[in-house]
């Protein structure tokens, strides 16, 4: 495979699918296959987005949401990784805590959000807590799977070479489960967006969720799509950044497996 072609495919293919969908959407809309009341064409949505950008509405909402996402993400992910690694490595802890995780994970954050407000008070704390909880379990479960996926021989080597529990964690368990931790992080970042929007739906003046809610209220359907597009865009951005980080940090992961791809 020629190098030029390779580089081209790494940038062209991903763009192709996205623009393809947008173009198709625009065409279907223009040809009248889509009800413009609910499915406005991308060009109109973009126009609406630009005007929101110009009057600062977008930046304001975006920055508020991003703050909540990152704060909640960090607060949920870091303990989630640590506990997940620990539960993956120690069967006793896993037996003890697995049922608790299994019971708490499917509790809908939205249902207990009022309770979170009571516990953490209103305002940012409870919103960030909801995001953190959402991230926590996803990362935990994936990190746990990551540890359990590690080949036993690595643990034997570490033990034989006298690794302390801490060294075992930082030099073996953590790096070896990084590929799956990344999967967890990827899911968690996406989920943190979902949760933050849900929470902003029910209680917030600013943020992308509040913006989407207000668009429903005022039936400014383009703004709603701008909000959804922002979610999609952020998701995309997160993924690209994560993928770059992943390639750099875990280069041994993710072989190409089909013959056409070498």
């Amino acid at each position, binding site marked *: 495979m020629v190098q030029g072609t390779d580089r081209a495919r790494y940038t062209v293919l991903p763009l192709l699918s996205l623009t393809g969908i947008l173009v198709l959407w625009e065409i279907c809309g223009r040809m009248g296959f889509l009800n413009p009341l609910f499915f406005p064409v991308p060009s109109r949505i973009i126009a609406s987005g630009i005007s929101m950008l110009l009057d600062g509405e977008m930046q304001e909402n975006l920055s508020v949401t991003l703050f909540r996402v990152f704060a909640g993400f960090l607060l949920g992910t870091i303990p989630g990784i640590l506990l997940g690694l620990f539960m993956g490595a120690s069967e006793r802890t896993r037996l003890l805590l697995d049922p608790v995780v299994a019971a708490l994970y499917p509790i809908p954050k939205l249902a207990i959000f009022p309770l979170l407000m009571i516990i953490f008070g209103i305002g940012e704390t409870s919103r960030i807590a909801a995001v953190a909880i959402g991230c926590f379990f996803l990362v935990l479960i994936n990190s746990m799977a990551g540890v359990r996926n590690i*080949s036993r*021989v*690595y643990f*034997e*080597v*570490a*033990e*034989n*070479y*006298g*690794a*302390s529990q801490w*060294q075992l964690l930082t*030099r*073996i368990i953590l*790096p*070896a489960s*990084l590929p799956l931790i990344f999967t967890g992080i990827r899911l968690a970042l996406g989920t943190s967006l979902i949760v933050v929007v849900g929470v902003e739906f029910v209680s917030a003046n600013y943020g992308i969720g509040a913006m989407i809610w207000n668009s429903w209220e005022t039936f400014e359907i383009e703004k709603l799509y701008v909000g959804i597009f922002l979610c999609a865009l952020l998701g995309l951005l997160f993924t690209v950044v994560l993928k770059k980080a992943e390639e750099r940090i*875990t*280069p*041994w992961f993710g072989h190409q497996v089909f013959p056409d791809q070498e």
Partner: protein
Amino acid sequence: MKLECRNICKLYGEGTTASRALDTISFETGEGEFLSVIGPSGCGKSTLLKIIAGLLPPTEGTVTYTGDNPGTPLNSMVFQEHGVFPWMNVIDNVAFGLEMRHVPRKERYAQSMEFLKKVGLASYATRNPHELSVGMRQRIAIARAFVNNPAILLMDEPFGSLDAQTRLILQDELLNIWSEHRKTVIFVTHDIDEAILLGDRVMVMSGSPGKIQEIIDIDFQRPRDLRIESTREFIDIRIRIWNILRAEVGRSIGGDNHGAGN
């Protein structure tokens, strides 16, 4: 350092489905002895080494270490499945044992580099293991055990996947180090010549369940080299071991026409 194994039994599994991997293994090594272990595949050699290393608990029996230990680790093992960490580069893999003992970075790199040179991988120090061939990875594992300077070296078919000349070089190197420091070495191999060339004694095992068939004294003077292979005594010992093993194989495959001439 001396080692004593007393009545070691090992069962895998539980209850009625348990299978016996080792049956009352008893032996001891002398101070600074080189003990070769040979036996058919599946006879429990790896299991025995792991029990000696403390990585597996024996179902019955005891392992006792005696002698004074000058600060270096009690034992270091070269694993049959090498266990080179894909998330560390070559030199970090080799320096792993030193790192676990908090040897300063500079010093551990210097020591590791020395052994990397000995196994012919000096120029690969900063490469990632997944870019190396299988044999090169096994050499990393060997260097890692050596640089750790343990009181007892446990080697599970360490030269199994090396090419002929690297193998001879490392046999030689192993004998050099050994005669310098007179460590106790337990060396599992499937090569009869290698077992005789290296060992003070050769422990011949049989399988299902793993038992000691015989422990043969090897009286060649040291330093030894390949020339002893053409002596009468060498060939006698070789035939003797071969006969034990062949009887064993006859039993396990059912005694059909698989004799290999000698």
